[in-house]
């Protein structure tokens, strides 16, 4: 690791101010991506601003039809939350499947979304549920937030403070983990909104990051059942291919995981 300046921010304002002072600052939340990358000398931020201990950024609130998760809340806390389990069980289930116990106790929802790893789990839920990402500057709709691999709508120094999820009528997540990394080789989140809209999102599959899956959405709008996907074909073009899964294998997984997500959603 290269030498860096570490700051533990006391508030969101403090974090933003500290960030501005550095020549090449990075926000640190759970550190599950940033720290390994720094240890390998693949990143060299001048300043690291730790936001994980800011009280205003930790916690879960369920009111009415909205689940709000503050950005520095760990995956473990989301997975264990009675309120989340009751309101959106698929979201708690998704959080319980991220990484391993060590990752879940450190990693945070805000950190995951800001990093936007193409194989991360949370982006699938955020996009499928039509969540709103709130920052210190503005509110960003899920559709506008994800901009491709490791790229988001966040501006330099902008910090995610919380994410608000509308409670769906039904939702389910099915993940096929990469055997080595346990990231999603392909994960599919299906959601039926209370107004009857259907949104299906795959992570880990596309070369462009998290993606809506139109053929599955159309099939499920007609018939919300796993069997409705039997005749669906997912094109392999534009999908990722690596030693763990070819593009046609991932295309198959989008469909199969979609079916299993529907079954899980009930």
């Amino acid at each position: 690791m290269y030498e860096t300046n570490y700051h533990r921010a006391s508030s969101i304002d403090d974090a933003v101010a500290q960030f501005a002072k550095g020549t090449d600052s990075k926000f640190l939340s759970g550190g599950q991506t940033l720290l390994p990358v720094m240890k390998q000398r693949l990143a060299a931020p001048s300043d690291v601003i730790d936001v994980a201990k800011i009280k205003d950024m930790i916690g879960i609130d369920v009111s009415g039809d909205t689940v709000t998760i503050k950005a520095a809340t760990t995956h473990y806390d989301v997975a264990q939350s009675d309120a989340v389990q009751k309101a959106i069980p698929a979201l708690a289930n998704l959080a319980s499947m991220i990484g391993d116990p060590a990752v879940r106790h450190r990693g945070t929802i805000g950190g995951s979304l800001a990093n936007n790893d193409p194989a991360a789990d949370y982006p699938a839920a955020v996009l499928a549920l039509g969540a709103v990402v709130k920052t210190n500057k503005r509110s960003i709709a899920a559709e506008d937030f994800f901009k491709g691999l490791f790229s988001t709508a966040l501006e330099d120094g902008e910090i995610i403070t919380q994410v608000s999820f509308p409670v769906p009528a039904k939702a389910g997540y099915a993940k096929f983990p990469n055997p080595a990394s346990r990231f999603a080789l392909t994960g599919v989140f299906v959601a039926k909104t209370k107004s009857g809209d259907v949104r299906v999102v795959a992570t880990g599959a596309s070369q462009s990051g998290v993606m809506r899956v139109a053929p599955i959405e159309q099939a499920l709008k007609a018939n919300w059942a796993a069997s409705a996907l039997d005749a669906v074909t997912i094109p392999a073009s534009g999908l990722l291919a690596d030693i763990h899964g070819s593009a046609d294998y991932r295309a198959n997984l989008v469909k199969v995981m979609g079916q299993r997500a529907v079954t899980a959603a009930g």
Partner: protein
Amino acid sequence: MGVEGIGARVVRKEDRRFITGQGRYVDDVKMVGMSYAHFIRSPHAHAKVKGINSAEAMKMPGVIAVLTGQQIVDDKVGNLICGWAITSKDGSPMKMGAWPAMAPETVRFVGQAVAVVIAETKNQAKDAAEAVVVDYEELPAAADIKTAIKPGAPQLHPEAPGNIVYDWHLGDEAAVKDAFSKAANVVTLELTNNRLVPNAMEPRAAVAHYDQAEEHYTLYTTSQNPHVARLVLSAFYNIAPEHKLRVIAPDVGGGFGSKIYIYPEEMVALWASKKVGRPVKWTGDRSEAFLTDAHGRDHVSKAEMAFDKDNKILGLRVKTHANFGAYMSLFSSAVPTYLYATLLSGQYVIPAIYAEVIGVYTNTTPVDAYRGAGRPEASYLIERMMETAARQLKVDPAELRKKNFITAFPYQTPVIMAYDIGDFHASIDAAMKAIDYAGFPARKAKAKADGKLRGIGVSCYIEACGIAPSKAVGSLGAGVGLWESAEIRVNPVGTIEVLTGSHSHGQGHETTFCQIIAERLGVPISQVSIVHGDTDKVQFGMGTYGSRSLAVGGTAIVKAMEKVEAKAKKIAAHALEASESDIVIENGEFKVTGTDKSIALPMVALAAYTAHNLPDGMEPGLKETAFYDPTNFTFPAGAYICELEVDPGTGKTSFVNFVAADDFGRLINPMIVEGQVHGGLAQGIGQALLEGAVYDNTGQLVTASFMDYTMPRADDLPSFQLSHTTTLCPGNPLGVKGCGEAGAIGASAAVINAITDAIGNNKLEMPATPDRVWHAIHG
């Protein structure tokens, strides 16, 4: 059996320090004035080193030296050696290129060191390494066997035309041809034995110190065989004569073969410690382990088996290409030859066998012995063949095996090995009963109704362990003998130190070896210490690999104990005024049989050291040494059966059951044996389902971290059902055979046989990832 004697499930003595974080590993060693080494490694698989400019690096804070490959050549440090000479079928010696510790002119694999920075801190060494400018001229690379043996392929070493190290053979080609001419059926099989990265938990490390006053070196290093390291460093690398070099391998966190070899980094640390006049520490990180620890396996084979009309095997023909990587590592040449082709008879009567092995250079990390070393490759080939044959011949795979089992011992195979004893029917019967083999068809039908593809796979392995009779291996080209030594020191108050040339890096010797003493003397194991891993304490030893420590090292302990007991009995008889032949040892006491007269061990020991009243002419002291050279290999064998389900939607494999019936001869500590089997099975299953080192066609290691290299995790594995059948090894007094490698040798075939049974398709290579299994099902 006493509570701590042979056969007792004694809790491991060494675990207290390991699980409380008090183990002392090489990286825990700190010396006054210690400096830190960081290696500059080639990013290219094949390139000329045109120049190294360290001018800027030398100006950086804390930098003591930047040393290059040319300097190590100029100082006449020897090239790395390969210790087993193999002769090609045309009678020519194997063809090897030179392997300098750091490359002066040409790099041949990604990660090969070209220079080293020595600095006050590790971080300063890393910072300076980034400022060293290495001018490479890239060359085309041959990253796999197929590419390397093509006409016109990039050539690695001028000494080895066509990248061929040797073209070796074993067996009777004419007899095999004759057998095939009489065959009613011939079964053919092509398979790949995938390359593995050892990934011991503790990365390699070295701390080297040159004492100018004494002209003496000390090396702390992660070694499975510190005496061999000292021998090689002295005799071949010209670092220092043996009496001026102490090698210490303290607690070592796993080896699996990868810590047998003397690597460039240890050599450079020693050389550099004199050069800079400071102790030098190098601790590899995980990335360096992936790139530079000797990899394992990597064979491509074609096999044919001939059967008569009654499904009896007539002959076996095998042609294997073995990938050695860019350089010939210490024991690499022996692995695909004498540790592989000699086991191709498996558990079966095969009247004629002919094996050809072509060793190939590629621009990849050197390959050498890895848990099982040649024997997993042989076992996988034979057991995949038996399964394939059973399907082709439309007979039950277990029955086909039984029909061809060797049942009379000793049995001379056509490929050198003479199996001393075994009962292969007993182990397969035990395994079949444990898994309810007869009930499988009903379970398969039920699984099918649930949408799952269920399969069952058998693997009957045999291995040659207890490596090895020195004269025999010498006649086959080995550069060393493979005996073992032991020294028993009974201290004046009766506590005992056992000095052994075996090295424990996870095997539990500190417990098992004590149990041997406890069994013989009836003393508690708390009174016994095992001393190992230090050339200043133990005179010589050959180390630990090839499941040899108990069969060879343990027998050396028994032989030394016999001498100690003989002398102690004389002292006891003298003290008790009895005849030496009437003395028996029970519960730590020397008793006159048939009387109530006795003298306790501490009193005998005290008498030996006070020497006030010893038999006339007897030397004082109670310390004996034995060197034990085995008369044969040992032959652990067993049967593994795996039952699993494949999800046709994803290709994902889930275990239903995995049963093992092993014959290791006598078990000293069944709990430790079970642990060894669990670990071995995890590695065998890991090879079958998860692990595989993948290079791209430019020679970059794609699986260079745990993000892409799938190490087995607990939830990848079933809960194993273990059992033992026993035939005592006649070749050693303990009747033991060795258990360290069995799981890794036998498991892979059971898994692949089960998956191919489940999916009804034999075209599947390891690792059987979900992607590959899904493609095997769906095309």
